[in-house]
């Protein structure tokens, strides 16, 4: 009666120990792999950020009004652009009023 119980306990203990050792080993491997992946990702993120800031700087240089103005001046013949003036800007209600007046004149 005593023996089988003790044997069962032993088997249980040994298997628990093996399983836990095995799982700890697996976890360690996983952690190592993850740490490597994290380092790799961090490196990629840093490189990506670097690239973004380079691109932003480049965009800043390309979008610089001074450069744009020089380009517009050079290609003025094709683009035919001119600075916007105050008289080209109107409120929606002004436009509506103008349309209404126009229609009224048409009816007359």
């Amino acid at each position: 009666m005593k023996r089988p119980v003790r044997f069962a306990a032993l088997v249980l203990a040994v298997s628990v120990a093996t399983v836990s050792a095995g799982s700890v080993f697996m976890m360690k491997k996983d952690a190592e792999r993850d740490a490597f992946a994290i380092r790799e990702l961090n490196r990629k993120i840093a490189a990506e950020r670097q690239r973004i800031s380079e691109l932003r700087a480049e965009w800043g240089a390309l979008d610089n009004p001074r450069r744009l103005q020089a380009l517009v001046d050079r290609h003025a013949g094709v683009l035919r652009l001119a600075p916007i003036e105050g008289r080209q800007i109107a409120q929606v209600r002004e436009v509506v009023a103008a349309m209404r007046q126009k229609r009224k004149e048409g009816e007359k």
Partner: protein
Amino acid sequence: MRRNTVRNEGARGRIGLLLVACVAIFGVISGRLVLLASAPAVAGAFYAGSPQDDVQAARPDIIDRNGEVLATDLATASLYAEPRNIVDVDEAVELLTRELPELDPVKLRRDLSTDRGFIWLQREVSGLKREAIHNLGIPGIGFLTETKRFYPGGSTVGHIVGHVNIDNAGIAGLEKTIDGGGLSALQSAGLARKGRDLSPVEVTIDLRVQHAVRDELSRAIERYRALAAIGIILDAKTLEVVAMTSLPDYDPNEPAQALEDIRMNRAMAGVYEMGSVFKTFTLAMGLDTGAITPASQLDARGKLQIGRHAIGDFHGKNRVLTAAEVFQYSSNIGSARIALKVGAQRVEEYYRAFGFLDRLDTELPEAAKPLTPSRWPQITLATTSFGHGISVTPMHVAAAAAAVVNGGIYANPTFYPRSEAEMMRIGRRVLSPQTSKQMRDLFYLNGNEGSGRSALVPGYNVGGKTGTAEKVVGGRYAENKRFNSYLAAFPMDDPQYIVLVVIDEPKPEEGKHYATAGWNAAPTVANIISRVGPMLHVEPRFPNDDAIERAITVAYQE
């Protein structure tokens, strides 16, 4: 049997103790594990950095009010050597000098022969050479990436952002201010590194407006063959600096230019006798103290004699003028009479309230202290009333003018965003709202019927005051060397922006005879406002029937 029991009981007790101890120890261990597992994963970040990070002192980007980049960090490669690890010094020297002829072979040989662990050989090596040196495969020679400051806008915002030295420490402009704000402490503690996010510094400058001002000023310099020009646009309500240009300026990517005197920031680091634009403040204090009303009669006949000095008028009307006409015709005699009526003590108080007696305290470190009289005898009172005998920076004038038209609230101008609520909290009242209203009317009058007519822009309702000061040459006022300015606000019924343009020593335009402010500074202001008005979302307004006509054109153009 009895003895056995006793022994058993003793053993049981010891085993129990052992069990309790084991459980306690394992309990502590597992508890600690749970704690570690539940802690956030920031700890890892400290170990994620490489030695590479240590050489990169990062600075925050500087962006304008629309998010355009004004200054940013770029990675550059710098060449280093570890002399201790170099096997063949002669070969290394030969190969390196072949690729980089600018290296001094003698010095290089001496440096590489030492037993040091690390030395810089060359900073900022270009990409092509970097590749070539890499391919040489010399042991003990390598590259580290360093950050270099880059200013995409170049000289457009040079005076505002300032620049950095080779170690990326700010030494001028906002860059210096950012360092003063604790960044250098962060860097030395190793906390500010590339890759960690430093949130960008947003400034109130609008790059497009800044460019437009700079472009118009450079045209003005060319057209009027002037020495220098200054342009300032301030938000009249919050005193945020929207644009500030001083030509000639410098490119912060070439910081050596900043050392040339001619390229200094005249808008804030130079003080000048501003001339007639000062009558704005004389009129304002006269109205505010109740010494005059716009209809007050002031005798502007002949000359005003004070002691042995006589004050005359440039365009003398030789009659009794109302206070409004004194402003409109820019009468020196009239404004001197107003200042005398206000009295020395109150004039000094007003000048102090307008900030004219102190150095401007903004985010820019380069700010000059005004040259002000220490005593206020009658003659000083009279001359300062029309802007002579007191020297302030153009920014002083623009800021005080904002207070004159915005309802009477003054605060130091700023380059960092400020809300109207904050302005209400920190601002101080220098003029009553009624005075401010009267001054807006005077600006409107002078802009439409006085010397400011050439600054009118259809739809934008510009008002302002011209100033033509004669420059002091060899202790005397020279008649043909002028310092012209136009101080404007728009739209006059509810001023949103202050525009100040100063042109230093303009000559008459080709085919014209005059070089007073109405002929150069005012038209420059008109050009600037017609360009920046739409950008700043100032709604243009026209008389009623005109609006309809215009709307039809706008509607049918599409």
